[in-house]
């Protein structure tokens, strides 16, 4: 039987890190996300609109090999080109040209640990005419 009634929400998305101070600087200053004041130095959380990004120190995972996250987290910005330019000015490298999927703009990039992120903006309405 499915646990349909059970799943309430996503509490956080874990962002594995080898250097929590470097990550805190990146998410807090470079990306400008708000630090959750209830989070600790050992478990830092950053808020982005609908969800929490939690820095997961590698030593907590109990694994020897460090694996960054391979599934891009799509950060909504009002204008992908403009946000990309600002991040490039802050020293963030983008490995490819911004993609136009036909419905949205996508600019993939990585955090300092190699975790996958993207700037994202859907410009086309959905099939029912609504917009994001």
């Amino acid at each position, binding site marked *: *039987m*499915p*646990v*349909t*009634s*059970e*799943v*309430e*929400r*996503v*509490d*956080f*998305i*874990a962002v*594995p890190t080898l250097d929590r101070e470097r990550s805190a600087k990146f998410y807090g200053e470079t*990306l*400008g*996300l708000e630090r959750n*004041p*209830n989070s600790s130095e050992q478990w830092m959380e950053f808020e*982005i*609109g*609908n*969800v929490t990004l*939690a820095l*997961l120190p590698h030593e907590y*995972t109990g*694994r020897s090999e460090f*694996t*960054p*996250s*391979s*599934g*891009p*987290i*799509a*950060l*909504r*910005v*009002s204008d992908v080109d403009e*946000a990309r330019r*600002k*991040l490039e000015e802050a020293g963030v490298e983008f490995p*490819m040209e911004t*993609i136009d999927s036909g419905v949205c703009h*996508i600019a*993939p990039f990585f955090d300092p640990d190699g975790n*996958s992120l993207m700037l*994202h903006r*859907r410009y086309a309405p*959905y*099939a*029912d005419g*609504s917009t*994001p």
Partner: protein
Amino acid sequence: MQAQKVDFVSIPTRDLDRAASFYGDTLGLERDPLSDSAWPELTAGNVTLAVVVPEQIGMEFAPLPTGAIAIRVPDVADARTELEQQGIAFEGDTFDSGACHMAFFRDPDGNGLMLHHRYKPYHDGSTP
């Protein structure tokens, strides 16, 4: 730069149908009716999970690391039992951090997921 929200979290897969079935049927997440079969999206409360074949966005397949997405359930032990009855294998015993319960498992592609429930109030007295 102003990041407004997370539009979606990508779940890398080698088999779109299998992944859509796992997230839709096994976890019981609602399929976003506006998403198509080439880019299935499922709604987990506040966040959209997008099942993605990484090669379509110029990436190589690699599973998400352990516990990458913390899925809130009212009771971790109950939810774990239900998923185990459906054949889901969990990694280790449920972990009690002193503030929350965590139970680690993986989807059919090996992506790391976690059942999560914080039972302890935050420093300011609020609860999740």
